[in-house]
């Protein structure tokens, strides 16, 4: 079940990116957040609690929508545009954070 609902502007060319290895279809002009939440309900696992997260402020202030490139660069999903061929990870590569839940 998707979290976000598209209400217009759907007549845009499509693109495919990969999220955790799986192909995700998006539209040109989508942010990573919209691309991911138009297909699924959540973006990432909280490091401090049991719950999944799906972002909060959408304006680059809360840092709740972090995702990573395969080379380890951290991106804010709300303010990064989806691009064809992008390979995104929803947990930080080569680093583990203890979950204190």
């Amino acid at each position, binding site marked *: 079940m998707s*979290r*976000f*609902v*598209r*209400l*217009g*502007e*759907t*007549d*845009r060319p499509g693109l495919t990116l990969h999220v955790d290895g799986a192909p995700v279809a998006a539209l*040109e*002009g*989508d*942010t990573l957040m*919209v691309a991911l*939440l*138009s297909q699924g*309900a*959540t*973006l990432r696992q*909280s490091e*401090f*609690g*049991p*719950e*999944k*997260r*799906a*972002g*909060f*402020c*959408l*304006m*680059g*202030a*809360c*840092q*709740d929508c972090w995702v990573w490139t395969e080379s380890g*660069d*951290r991106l804010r999903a*709300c*303010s990064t*545009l989806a691009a064809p061929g992008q390979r995104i990870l929803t947990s930080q590569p080569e680093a583990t954070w203890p979950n*204190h*839940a």
Partner: protein
Amino acid sequence: MAEPRIIIVGAGPAGTRAAEACVQAGIRPIVLDEGRRDGGQIYRRQPDNFTRPYTKLYGTEAPRAQALHETFDGLNDRIDYCPETLVWNIADGHVRTATRTMESALPFDALLLCTGATDRLMPVKGWQFAGSYSLGGAQVALKSQAVSIGHKVVFMGSGPLLYLVASQYVQAGADVVAVLDTAPYSARIKALPDLLAVPSVLWNGVALTLALKRAGVMVRNSVKPLEILGDAADGVSGIRFRVGDGAEQMIACDAVAMGHHLRPETQLADLARCKFAFDPVTRQWLPERDGDGRSSIAGVYLAGDGAKILGARSAEASGRLTALAALGDLGLPVDKGEMASLRGDVGTYAKFARGLATAFPWPAEQAGALPDEAILCRCEGVTAGDLRAVMRETGAKEANRAKAFSRVGMGRCQGRYCGLAAAELIAAQAGIPVERVGRLRGQAPVKPINISIGDTDA
């Protein structure tokens, strides 16, 4: 003498009008903006390949949005515009910036901070679940991406944005289940004398509420939020609340847009060592400034909602006024008559803003009433009970001390979304006025930056 270097931080309504005033005075300012495009949050632009017209995106404010964007476009080759550039510190007379790959330190003769605002949040038990969004965030989703934050959306909180975003959602075809306002309706009557300062905006607000009711949306006042229901895996599934002292009610939904008006982004003013004062009307600490936008630090100026929440129209006026003040201070000729007229405009908007604060009060008492198990800090999952325990164990009653012991305000958002509520909770628990709790000090970097980026000299 070399041309003075004016740096403007922010390209929203205040920053754009400030840049315009500089260019008209023959100065080429540097405009640093975190956004990908100009417009700020309120007049945020949609991606280039989107086709919705201005009227659809900005409603009654469409002509203002269009005029502002066109002004900025016209400045294009007469300013040094740096989009996607974070100002992360102000120290030793330099503005420290970071892009994805590069760090710079820029000296300045005048620094105009037009940093804008973020949502003011009152935590509700369950607000950590996926599907809870800030009101401003819900608006950004629609405005810049043409999506709704959920299939069934509840709007909860207070303030003009609550009604504005809810009606924008209805107009765009989203399923808005309810608008739950914590403010009593009577507060609006009390606020009328001040709200009449800007009748057109008051009327816009009345029209929005009527349109929501006509569309069949449940609108309630005097709401006491109890809990956002949900689970760890799937997120939000409903909301529990009371109206006044009435019976508990429950509504099913998969998204909640929440917020209580706005708070200014004052961290950079803090790092520039501007003096702050407590504003009893909004219960916020604000940087001090004179009527023209001069801060307590020579060469540092403050404009728009980043200094005090007076709205976008006021931000255009104060952006221009503050730039004129800076230009005058640098010895350039400025029109004193125009400055007086802009001061008058800002005064009118300030009266209206005071009316909004009366009509849609910040429900400070909700923070003290948060159950122990409610999460207060969304970043790190610190609960209201954790903070209360820290207060009992350490005696901490000051915001920064309580933060050091509890980590409330130390997470990724750096207290933007929990800080004001945490202060109210501490005040309630300690039985002291909230101004005695103090304010969280701004810390550099004001947002996370990569530690691997390179340096460049200005």
